[in-house]
């Protein structure tokens, strides 16, 4: 009987304190990752829209934020079709063999809050072509409670994740040291994603 009362007492705390799982598969198709490579002879710009994954976020405990963002490698697009074919090909990203690019977030630290925006450093792991490296990425999170209805016509909350960081292709074994004059080693990645937590 004591256990019953204990559960009854704890249950509301568990409901209010539990993290919310935000889904980043955007039915509106706005979620995009933008990338840029600025080499000596050529600058390559592109984007990717095949984003999915979930992030579990608790507004009362943002440091324990975790989850993963998955990018469909075949959705990476550049403005030249021949270049895109090469990029997807065996020598570069080999999308048929490695169809996903994954960033796994393990926690947040150095958290600072400015108005609605939470700025932090995200610790995580980036996997490209089956090579995983540990990374720390600056992130900005905006938690918009109850505003999913205005975006997706479904009651719930929104979590906007923004970040700008650089990765090096040679860290992932993508033609290390080759074609550096045309394809830069450093890839600047800019993400601006909205995740949904529907309450119904």
């Amino acid at each position, binding site marked *: 009987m004591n256990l019953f009362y204990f559960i009854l007492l704890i249950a509301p705390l568990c409901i209010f304190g539990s993290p919310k799982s935000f889904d980043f598969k955007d039915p509106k*198709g*706005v*979620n*995009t990752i*933008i990338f840029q490579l600025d080499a000596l*002879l*050529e*600058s*390559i*710009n*592109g*984007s990717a*829209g095949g984003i999915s994954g979930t992030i579990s976020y608790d507004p009362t405990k943002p440091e324990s934020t975790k989850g993963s963002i998955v990018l469909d490698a075949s959705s990476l*697009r550049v*403005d*030249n*079709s021949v*270049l895109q074919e090469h990029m997807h090909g065996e020598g570069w990203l080999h999308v048929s063999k490695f169809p996903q690019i994954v960033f796994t977030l393990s926690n947040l630290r150095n958290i600072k809050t400015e108005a*609605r925006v939470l700025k932090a450093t995200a610790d995580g792991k980036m996997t490209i072509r089956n090579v995983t490296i540990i990374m720390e990425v600056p992130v900005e999170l*905006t938690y*918009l409670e109850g*505003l999913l209805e*205005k*975006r997706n016509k479904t009651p719930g909350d*929104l979590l*906007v994740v*923004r970040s700008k960081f650089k990765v090096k292709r040679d860290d992932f074994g993508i033609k290390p040291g080759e074609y550096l004059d045309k394809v830069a080693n450093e890839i600047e990645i*800019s993400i*601006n*994603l*909205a995740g949904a937590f529907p309450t119904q």
Partner: protein
Amino acid sequence: MLINSPTREPELSIMVRCTLIFLPLSIAMFFWLKDGARLSFWATSEEIHQEVPVVEGMPELGTQTQVIWKDRFICGIETPILGLTFSSLLTLSSFYQKRRLKNLPH
């Protein structure tokens, strides 16, 4: 009369020759500049960035960049290079033609 004038005819021919020589380069430069003078190679599609509010009608809550791809051909650095190559070839052929005509027995 222009036809009967012995000095006017070669001048006009030089002008036409020069125009024809510089025509490929001029056309190439026109299209290259019109497409934004890209220093990289040609493109088969164009990336258009649009700022969309995260929540419709509430841009104060932040925006997201939506990327729209439009299929269209955009000239790259190869266009003026091709134009220059054609113009150079025409210059060379014109030069050799002139030399050949000069060497013809009268």
